[in-house]
């Protein structure tokens, strides 16, 4: 059993209102009055206020965790609402941490919600993480996962991990004091072109509800010191097959961060480590010299310039909307289908928002293509700037 993180001395008292609110917890011997007071004394940092952070934060607020920290720098948009249940239609356009704070304080005004409307970086991570008892990894990307993992190892904090993709989820507790860390499981991240995210791979809306609720469960168990946590175990959930599997995750004696002879003793540059290109694909750009704007492309097509248009989205996305005149070579097949392209032709790569096509451009330029451009901002930008009748998704 993982020892409880909250010392039993000097626990805060519960008010009459709190005793009523938490009465169903007080009736469970494993929680009881003392446990509820531990939750009130406890604090949890949730990094990411999206699909996983929504249910996790709601349940932790409802359970009476005294102090909840939220990190996110995004704002709520319509495509979030299919799964990010802490937000609502009325908070579209509002910073996510503010939107979530409003909802959590409405659910439970007795708790404190601290917001960090910021990017988590190697510069601020140690300071933010150090203020909380338990950390929940509800992020969507490898640089932040490794950053959080390393910060938690250095600070001796338990990290409750969750990850999702379409119908598949993973959850674990990485706690180097008692078991393995994330790097013991996966020493290195996959290269960026092999990593589809929710925005391009999609996610089954209920899936993060299941995994995020499991993360909240583990965070509460860690605060209370009850039960068997997922330290040293990885939970694999398949929503389509409806299977839950547990596999063992041993501490890796050669782990570069939590092993006996660590190579990494302070936070590093996680973007470089994860191979995220220096010219990040922000706003669907491959870098100015490799981009073509929707307006430029429209003008050149109208002039009759000979340009081969390659849509790198997946085939089922073409059912939603097609780009007129474009051929389809999904990014996932591009490495095997490079021979179908001719480096002497002028090529424009297209995708939903311009970032998969930017990655496709990286593949092509690495293969020696030079007359290739990325449609900046993808179909989304085309719909905004050229063809307002185009379906957006």
């Amino acid at each position, binding site marked *: 059993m993982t020892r409880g993180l909250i010392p039993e001395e000097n626990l805060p008292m519960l008010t009459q209102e709190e005793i009523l609110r938490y009465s169903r917890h007080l009736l469970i011997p494993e929680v009881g009055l003392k446990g509820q007071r531990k939750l009130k004394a406890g604090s949890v940092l949730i990094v*990411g206020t999206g*699909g*996983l*952070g929504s249910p996790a934060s709601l349940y932790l607020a409802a359970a009476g965790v005294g102090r909840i920290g939220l*990190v*996110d720098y*995004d704002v709520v948009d319509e495509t*979030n609402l299919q799964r*990010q249940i802490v937000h609502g239609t009325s908070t579209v356009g509002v910073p*996510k941490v503010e939107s979530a704070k409003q909802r959590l304080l409405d659910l439970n005004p007795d708790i404190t919600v601290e917001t960090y409307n910021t990017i*988590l*970086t190697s510069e601020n991570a140690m300071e933010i993480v150090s203020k909380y008892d338990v950390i929940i990894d509800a*992020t*969507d*990307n*490898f*640089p*932040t*996962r490794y*950053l959080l993992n390393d910060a938690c190892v250095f600070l001796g904090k338990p990290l409750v991990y969750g*990850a*999702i*993709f*379409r119908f*598949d*989820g*993973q959850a674990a507790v990485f706690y180097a004091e008692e078991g393995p860390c994330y790097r013991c*499981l*996966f020493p*290195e991240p*996959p290269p960026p072109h092999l*990593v*589809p*995210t*929710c*925005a*391009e*791979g999609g*996610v089954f809306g209920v899936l993060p509800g299941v995994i995020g609720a499991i993360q909240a469960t583990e965070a509460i168990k860690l605060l209370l010191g009850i039960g068997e946590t997922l330290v040293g175990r*990885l939970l*694999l959930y*398949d929503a389509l097959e409806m299977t839950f*599997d*547990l*596999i*063992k995750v*041993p501490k890796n004696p050669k782990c570069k961060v939590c092993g006996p002879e660590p190579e990494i003793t302070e936070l590093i540059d*996680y973007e470089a480590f994860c191979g*995220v290109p220096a010219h*990040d*694909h*922000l*706003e*669907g*750009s491959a870098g100015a010299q490799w981009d073509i704007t929707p307006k430029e492309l429209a003008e050149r097509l109208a002039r009759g310039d000979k340009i081969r248009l390659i849509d790198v989205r997946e085939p089922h996305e073409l059912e939603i909307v097609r780009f007129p005149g474009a051929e389809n070579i999904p990014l996932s097949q591009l490495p*095997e289908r490079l021979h179908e392209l001719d480096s002497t032709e002028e090529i424009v790569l297209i995708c939903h*928002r311009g*970032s*998969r096509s*930017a990655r496709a451009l990286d593949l092509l330029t690495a293969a020696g293509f030079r007359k290739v451009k990325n449609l900046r901002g993808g179909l989304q930008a085309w719909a905004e700037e050229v063809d307002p009748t185009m379906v957006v998704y």
Partner: protein
Amino acid sequence: MAVTVRIPGPLRRLTQGEGELQVEAQTVGEALAILRQRYPQLGQRLFDGEGQLKPFVNVYLDDEDIRFLQELDTPLTDGAVLTLVPAMSGGDEKVAKNGREGER
């Protein structure tokens, strides 16, 4: 030995949608070699140029990581289950600078 190999959702597009495969093999390495032959794209995802398993896809024999057994030489028994476990990013939304925020 007849063993089952379980392919999780994120890797199924490399196996033409198959989630469970049956193979006859004596060791983990043999079983993976058969998969590699049948699904070259999956092979590329699992192995580097030197035939070593890549560090971001783990192979489990029942509930144990083969890195902590005898790696590719780990012997198989009849009815054993191999599970591939990929590193997943997922989750949601952008909280890290330059992470995958460009996916929007």
